[in-house]
């Protein structure tokens, strides 16, 4: 009985010019992402023999000079205090150069697990020198100097990198997931999509969901007398329409995902859901904590959040379109709600200052940020991840459901009016 109605609505949804526009926009964005953005993506910790080799030569030369300077200062009768740079170099460079040598050899032999092992140790060692010991012979890469938070960002970046290398190495050992250069640089399709599914990218996807849902109810006024007295309850109609938007959204994003995979995978490889990745849990007992999980687990968590969040926004937009009787205003208000956290309070340390933000569902709308731990880092608030986000999101969904239930009980509020 409802199947034909569902199909009817789905067909109407799929040939709606606004929705076709959204489909095209998503495809264009996916193509841009895959063909322009990904190839030009800046990998800060590149697996590249050239800069490492150059650094190796420079550091070896500097070490030689530093050793001469120390030797000079030790000559009897000379009252000469060697520079701090020279002292530090003598004590630290041999270790770094030893790592560099092994790393260069690993690259040459394409022994990627050896690379991961020594690069991880190197990043950990240098991070300790810069961040803990304040050694000025080393600096984090300049690419971290983007958010006026150079030292913290660099520290976080190095920690994440060496934890990632350790995780990948553990994965190779446990699950036989072979490593390669693209995997280490997180360039494979599944890795690059993982790293991109956060921030504005996801929020734009949520806005697309809002606009998909905006006229799903109000559009019925075009077919008013055909649908006016059908023997279905308002709630059934809304559930079927929700299903239609869910299918449309799924189709849209699956197509976008397939485009991205087809464009990226031939060039950089597909990657594997069994590959390990890391998510940042925040500072626990003053120690930055990273957890190893598989890409498959990441995507599972992402999909769970995506289903809940898209459901929330479809139902919220439907609710607003019934109450306000205007699809454009409903779409706009839902979209503003979607980006509210990003606009209002996504900034450094806000979680530390306002811990209650953890309970706000808006905190989790950008999905990837919370699942990867970027949110915990940005807000300086441990634990603002998948588990923390489930409660507020489900509560919000329930509130919207209660409101929808109440509004559908009021006879004076029909789903559509002819004159709307």
């Amino acid at each position, binding site marked *: *009985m409802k199947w034909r109605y569902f199909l009817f609505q789905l067909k*109407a949804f799929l040939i709606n010019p606004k929705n076709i526009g959204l489909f095209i926009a998503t495809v264009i964005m996916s193509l841009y992402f895959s063909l322009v953005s990904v190839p030009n993506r800046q990998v800060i910790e590149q697996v590249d023999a050239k800069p490492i080799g150059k650094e190796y030569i420079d550091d070896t030369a500097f070490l030689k000079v530093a050793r001469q300077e120390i030797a000079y200062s030790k000559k009897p009768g000379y009252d000469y205090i060697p520079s701090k740079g020279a002292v530090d170099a003598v004590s630290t460079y041999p270790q770094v150069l030893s790592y560099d040598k092994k790393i260069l050899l690993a690259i040459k032999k394409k022994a990627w697990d050896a690379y991961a092992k020594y690069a991880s140790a190197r990043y950990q060692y240098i991070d300790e020198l810069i961040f803990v010991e304040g050694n000025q012979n080393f600096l984090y890469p300049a690419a971290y100097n983007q958010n006026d938070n150079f030292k913290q960002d660099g520290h976080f970046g190095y920690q994440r990198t060496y934890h990632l290398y350790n995780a990948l190495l553990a994965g190779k050992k446990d699950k036989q997931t072979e490593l390669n250069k693209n995997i280490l640089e997180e360039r494979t399709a599944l890795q690059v999509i993982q790293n991109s599914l956060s921030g504005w990218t996801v929020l734009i996807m949520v806005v697309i969901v809002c606009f998909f849902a905006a006229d799903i109810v109000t559009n019925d006024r075009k077919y*008013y007398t055909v649908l*006016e007295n*059908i023997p279905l*309850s308002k709630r059934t109609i809304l559930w079927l329409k929700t299903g239609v938007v869910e299918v449309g959204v799924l189709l849209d994003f699956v197509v976008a995902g397939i485009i991205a995979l087809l464009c990226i995978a031939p060039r950089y490889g597909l990657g594997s859901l069994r590959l390990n990745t890391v998510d940042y849990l925040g500072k626990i007992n003053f120690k930055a904590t990273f957890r190893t999980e598989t890409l498959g687990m990441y995507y599972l968590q992402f999909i769970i959040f995506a289903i809940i969040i898209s459901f929330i926004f479809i139902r919220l937009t439907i609710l607003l379109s019934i109450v306000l009787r205007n699809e454009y205003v409903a779409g706009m208000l839902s979209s503003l709600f979607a980006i509210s956290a990003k606009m209002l309070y996504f900034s450094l340390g806000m979680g530390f200052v306002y811990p209650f933000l953890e309970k706000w569902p808006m905190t989790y709308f950008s999905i990837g940020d919370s699942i990867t731990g970027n949110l915990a880092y940005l807000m300086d608030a441990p634990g603002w991840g998948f588990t923390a986000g489930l409660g507020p999101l489900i509560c919000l969904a329930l509130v919207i459901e209660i409101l929808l239930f109440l509004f559908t009980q009021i006879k004076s509020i029909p789903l559509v009016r002819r004159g709307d």
Partner: protein
Amino acid sequence: MLKIKDVTLAFGKNVVLDDVNLEFKQGEIVGLVAPNGTGKSTLINVILHNLTPQKGFVEYENTRYQTQKDTIKLHQEICSFPEQSDLFPFMTGRDHLNLYADLWHNSEKPVEQIITDLQMENYVDKKVQTYSLGMKQRLCFAMVVAADSPVMLLDEVMNGLDPQNVALISQMLLKLKDENKLIIMASHLLSNLQQYADRVLFMGKGHIIEDLDNKKQNKRYLKMQSTPETTKLLANYDYETLPNNLILVPLEKIEQDKLTQLIASLVRADIQYAVERIDIEDLFNKFYD
């Protein structure tokens, strides 16, 4: 049985339905007749619960519109004729028929049979946007038939149809009546109602001003055009003149010999006359000056 009990509905000070009481039985075709804006569509909308009366209620088979569940139950029993401008232009006629058949759980009447009966085979699989007005109108009617509900509300079903299609749909209406459907149709096509309706309701000033049993119309009238000569001839007779200058002389009120005299006088004066029952068009002219 469909009951409309003490229904009063007003838009502001304009009382469109004023304490209306009606009962409809299954297996009859009921015509609703009135000039535009007199409450036909309002009455249909009250039956469908699209408009809630300030007083009174609608009841079908002991169920009234009280809860959402009741509304769905009643809408399962009552199907109304959609407007052709509201059809989905990008869907086919068959899509529409299947939709209504599915929504109303029609498993008895195959959609294919309806398509054949209404001679829609040539176009039913094309998109509605390619249809002429008449084709769309036939589709709207076919959708109600596909719903196969016990009560069918048809608002101006014959609009835009050529005589062949009017005849086709009329035949279908008789078939539906034989299937014990209650068909309530608002129409301006009075001759068609005259032919097929069992009962005709004339509406005006919020009331049912005449509830005509169309099948039991035995009264005969002497009909002629009003002229000074005829009025002079009829000076001693009981008659009424309709706004369209038609004079109706009820035969039941004239004695046989007087009638013979009158007819002889009319023949002598060369005045054309007819002996007929009063038809719906005459009544329409009578009620809506």
